[in-house]
């Protein structure tokens, strides 16, 4: 077990190193002098020189990279050019909002995706199967932002059931928070539900044909027990792993969902930073997501290992 974790960590490290290199070179690609950007209105050469010194801009590039990396390792991702706030605290502020959205969306995706996949695998070739497939394909084919706008038009504007946009912290009012989050979570969840449904279906179909299912049936167990306890439990192994890997998808979706529903989360932070050319924030966010994504990959491997006893032998 320990050996496995160490081996996986050793594979993850070079990837992480490459990500830091790529994020760092992002700032070299940019046109313009970063010292001038940091100075703002100030045009005094002495001040600009001082900034250059302070941010190590006069050093050779590898040295600059080392300074940057050491600071990043200490949690210092620089300062937002726009509102002068540390990038780290911006990320820490916005993250819980997106995390809540992502968890709600994942719950919706798992419930719909696994249930629909299960039904369509058991009733393969039936109307149920066809219907579930159409829903899954639509989930993949409908752009997230468009579904969001259409839901706002229908549910908020026409029927007035739910608020169209905004955000309230769950600490202030949980009911109001859920009221505002449910629509974005559904929009984000359906896109992933489609993927989950397809994985559950194909994993379930292989499981149904497996020997252990035949054995379970031969023992005289009821179909319900065979399907839920034997087939589904095995089929869920790859599905759970896939779920962890949907993180990137979830984040991309959150960028759009937050934009449409004006939720002040991580995704909106990224889009605003790109539009304001606030590159320190873009860099910090990309570095952060890349790192989290690698950790999620590690977690997926670990889950796979834990859920699949055959790998432990």
């Amino acid at each position, binding site marked *: 077990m320990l050996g496995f974790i160490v081996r996986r960590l050793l594979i993850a490290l*070079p*990837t992480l190193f*490459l*990500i830091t290199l*790529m994020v760092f070179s*992002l700032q070299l*690609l*940019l046109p313009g002098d970063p010292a001038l950007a940091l100075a703002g209105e100030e045009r005094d050469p002495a001040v600009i020189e001082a900034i250059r010194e302070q941010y190590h801009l006069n050093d050779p590039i590898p040295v600059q990279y080392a300074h940057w990396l050491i600071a990043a390792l200490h949690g210092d991702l620089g300062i937002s050019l726009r509102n002068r706030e540390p990038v780290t605290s911006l990320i820490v502020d916005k993250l819980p909002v997106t995390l809540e959205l992502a968890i709600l969306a994942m719950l919706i995706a798992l419930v719909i995706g696994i249930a629909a996949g299960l039904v369509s695998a058991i009733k393969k070739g039936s109307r149920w199967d066809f219907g579930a497939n159409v829903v899954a*394909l*639509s989930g*993949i*084919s*409908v*752009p*997230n*932002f*468009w579904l969001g*706008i*259409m839901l706002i*038009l229908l549910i908020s*504007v026409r029927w007035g059931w739910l608020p169209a946009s905004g955000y309230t912290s769950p600490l202030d009012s949980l009911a109001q928070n859920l009221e505002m989050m449910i629509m974005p979570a559904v929009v984000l969840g359906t896109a992933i539900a489609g993927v989950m449904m*397809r994985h559950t*279906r*194909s994993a379930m*179909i*292989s499981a149904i044909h497996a020997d252990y299912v035949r054995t379970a049936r031969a023992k005289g167990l009821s179909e319900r027990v065979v399907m839920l306890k034997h087939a589904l439990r095995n089929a869920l192994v790859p599905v759970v792993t896939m779920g962890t890997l949907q993180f*990137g*998808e979830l*984040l*991309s979706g959150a*960028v*759009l969902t937050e*934009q449409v529903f004006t939720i002040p989360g991580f995704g909106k932070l*990224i*889009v605003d930073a*790109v*539009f304001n*050319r606030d590159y320190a924030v*873009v860099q910090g*966010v*990309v570095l952060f*997501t*890349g790192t989290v*994504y*690698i950790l999620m*990959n590690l977690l997926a491997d670990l889950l796979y290992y834990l859920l699949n006893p055959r790998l432990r032998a």
Partner: protein
Amino acid sequence: MTLLMALLQRKSVAISLLFILIVVVAALFAPWLAPCDPTQQFFDGLTIEGAPLPPSADFYLGTDLLGRDLLSRIIYGARTSLIIGVVSNGIAVVIGTLVGVTAGFVRGWVGSVLMRFTDLMMSFPALLLAIALAAILHPSLWIVALVIAMVNWVQIARVIHAQTISIAAKDFVAVERTIGAGPLRILFSHLLPHLLPTILVWATLGISTTVLLEATLSFLGVGVQPPMPSWGNIIFESQTYFTSAMWLVLFPGIAIVALSLSFNLVGDALRDELDPTLKGRL
């Protein structure tokens, strides 16, 4: 030909192919099919208060916030979607295949480096990378096509890589080697023909992803720039109006969904037909 017949027997695929054909015709013959110039701002295309007009006999799908004919903009928008779909997906397929085949066939350190790089590209959410690139590079039609290609080749490279390794390990390749076939002969007369179905399936499914990504980038304002119409930027431009003029969001959205769904359905059917082991299972 038999493949096409097999595909056409599925009702959903026949409808999808018909729709794709309609979009292709619309894109090719846009100047003759569109009732108006897509950039012309009609004086009578706005209400007295300056709001867009709903669908009517003069403007079949209504007008946009500058008094331009929406139907004409959607027809010309088909060009944008298809150009990006074909060009950027084409580039993605070529890069993905080259990387995947090289990494799977050459193996060794070249293979490791290539696949590690692919992993690295995988580790960024594609949309985030595309937004960052598009923002730095100042978007135009061709830049957007390139940016989408840069993020979309990764998936194809992974699939082709896995497929190449599994085919290269097959007995018939070993037999070829023992009778003295060189690597190039194995590559071109054995590996590539066997990879073709996979490439075809992913090329089709990839167009759907590409169309969606273009629409998404344009919706965020970092994609194709107005006045050139694209289905995504029509929605982007109309954002402030969407509660009072929902046709501006509804029609381009339906076009995006229908095109993306069509390529997905055709791609899925192709996969079923070309890979007999999957038949009836997926």
